[in-house]
């Protein structure tokens, strides 16, 4: 078996947010076709890693490197990262009043594909994907995340991911706040994304999403570092034993 391209290589990454160091030396390599699960307690730095990968301006890389498709990622702004195939499904997507979902999706797709998609074709694609995610038609004329339920927000994140067809998808706590039906829908959306060229980084606090999606690797984060890595069985061990098994909770 030939080794797939290392799409993401993180080396000894240190990140500060507002003068507080959150990531303290993270290293991680992800190849195309792989699914990695990143687990850990709240506050361990998982979301910080996801924001850093997407290029949030408030998250400053103070040391270490991020290589994406062989180039230094840190030089790119968030929009350039998106257009080059990185996607972040947000844990808490923001509302943007007055901007309809359909206008937004069309603009996003145009940015990613570099060309305008004919309206008719786009609507057809949209309808198909929406129905498999159990999203109603009236969704399109609503404003982005404005008054959305938790489940609706997460479905919109998945819908965007499918439309933008990323090479590297980072999903930040996509399972949180979902009931079991929504969880299954979202999980099947994620599964439909997988393939030999797509890399997925699943960030999750709980193991339950991993009942539906089988990761190739599981990593455990603690106090800004990855402290343990293993195969999918690691998630089950964590479920059975708790995070204390990996490391004691930091003293607050």
């Amino acid at each position, binding site marked *: 078996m030939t080794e797939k391209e290392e799409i993401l290589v993180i080396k000894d990454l240190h990140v500060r947010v507002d003068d507080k160091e959150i990531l303290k030396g993270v290293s991680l390599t992800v190849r195309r076709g792989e699914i990695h699960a990143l687990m850990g307690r709240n506050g361990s730095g998982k979301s910080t890693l996801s924001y850093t990968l997407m290029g949030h301006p408030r998250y400053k890389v103070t040391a270490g490197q991020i290589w994406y498709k062989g180039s230094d990622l840190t030089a790119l702004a968030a929009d350039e*990262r998106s257009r080059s195939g990185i996607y972040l499904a947000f844990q808490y997507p923001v509302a943007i009043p007055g901007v309809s979902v359909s*206008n937004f999706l069309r603009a996003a797709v145009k940015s990613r594909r570099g060309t305008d998609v004919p309206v008719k074709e786009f609507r057809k694609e949209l309808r198909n994907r929406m129905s498999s995610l159990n999203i109603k038609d009236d969704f399109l*004329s609503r404003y982005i995340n404005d008054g959305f339920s938790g489940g609706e927000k997460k479905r919109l994140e998945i819908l965007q991911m499918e439309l933008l067809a990323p090479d590297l998808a980072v999903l930040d706590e996509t399972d949180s706040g979902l009931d079991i039906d929504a969880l299954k829908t979202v999980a099947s959306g994620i599964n439909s994304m997988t393939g030999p060229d797509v890399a997925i980084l699943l960030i999750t606090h709980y193991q339950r999403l991993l009942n539906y999606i089988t990761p190739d690797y599981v990593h455990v984060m603690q106090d800004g570092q990855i402290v343990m890595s293993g195969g999918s069985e690691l998630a089950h061990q964590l479920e059975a034993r708790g995070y204390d098994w990996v490391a004691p909770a930091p003293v607050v």
Partner: protein
Amino acid sequence: MAAEVTKPFDLRAVGDDYKYGFHDKEDYSFKSGKGLTAEIVNKLSAMKNEPEWMLKFRLRALDIFLKKPMPTWGNTELLNDIDFQNIHYFVRATDRQERDWNEVPEGIKRTFDRLGIPEAERKFLAGVTAQYESEVVYHSIREDLEKQGVIFLDMDTALKEHEDIIREHFGTIIPPADNKFAALNSAVWSGGSFVWVPAGVRVEIPLQAYFRINTENMGQFERTLIIAEPGSYVHYIEGCTAPVYSSDSLHSAVVELIAKPGAHIRYTTIQNWSKNVYNLVTKRAVAHEDARVEWVDGNLGSKLTMKYPSIFLVGPRAHGEVLSIAFAGSSQHQDAGAKMVHVAPDTTSIIVSKSISKDGGRASYRGLIKVYPQATGVKSSVRCDALLLDEKSRSDTYPTMEIDESKVTIEHEATVSKVGEEQLFYLMSRGLTQAEAITMIVNGFLEPFTKELPLEYAVELNRLIALEMEGSVG
């Protein structure tokens, strides 16, 4: 799904070739000298062959204008910069009226072409008066309007053909003594529209007029009067753009609306004057019993805009709404707002005002809610939202309440916000550039206004906003 992907995001696509800085070679049959005198007013009225009473009205207004001091509020610094001696008070683009588009002079057509007007014309084909310079050059009236008995004319023609109706209503809502600029307009008005809708008639297609200034140092003083007889409905739309000139230009319109019992008037404006124009407009409506008046007012461009559409709710259960946006860019001051005067019981009003300031621009909301004694059961709500795009821009709110009756419900809410970092990051994480993301957020902020516009205007407004956003970041 009617409101679906409505020309969703060609905002940026339009940008590059949209330049309003062009202008045609001047070719005018008459141009008054600079400065304002009784002689000019006499000459102007004589050229128009006006009845004696109109000349007297003008001369009396001139007298008031010359005596009245400048307003001592608003942006007095800019106001006092106006040099009334350095303005042409009357310019006539062509000597005759044009009824057929084919007869409109080429140079004028070209200007309209570049503004995209023919498209709107084709789509709506309601009666259109297109004002080029101080006078109407193109005026077509659709047959079914005529069949309905609706009168839609430029004001000069209307004065000839319907003198009685004009004489009865002209200047009754905004008398010349109302303010200095209303007096100025009353003295030298030229062009504008006259609309009269018979009782019970609904005009289903919006009536549109296009205005455009084109002579350096030229004043433009349209006079519009709309009368909706009992139970009728009309929507009137005006939209403006102006080319860029080096020295200041004054625009001072007067618009009077009369909504008789049970009538409904909507008046939509989008103004995009070039950034050297003073736009000092008096707009006022009277709403009688069960009538409804809505001002939908968009102010972009200009150096200084002072405009406060007002509604006098004089009959029981009359309803008034002002929905306005103001966009203030570099060295611009938009001083806009609304006035609601509740004279009769059970009258209701809504004011929604949205402003955007960037590059040091200043947007002010200036509003008045007045409730007279015995006007019980009045309900009024005011909402002002300001969006600041950078640190050096400014937003002010000057709300005034004069409530002389206790059995009323008045709500006032004001917010000031900035484009959120998280919203920006979210959109950029989907591939939108920073400028595209800001444009999208701003257009979203304006959506409550935009959605009230006919589609063509909504698209045009979004384009204008996108243009304004260009180069605003980086």
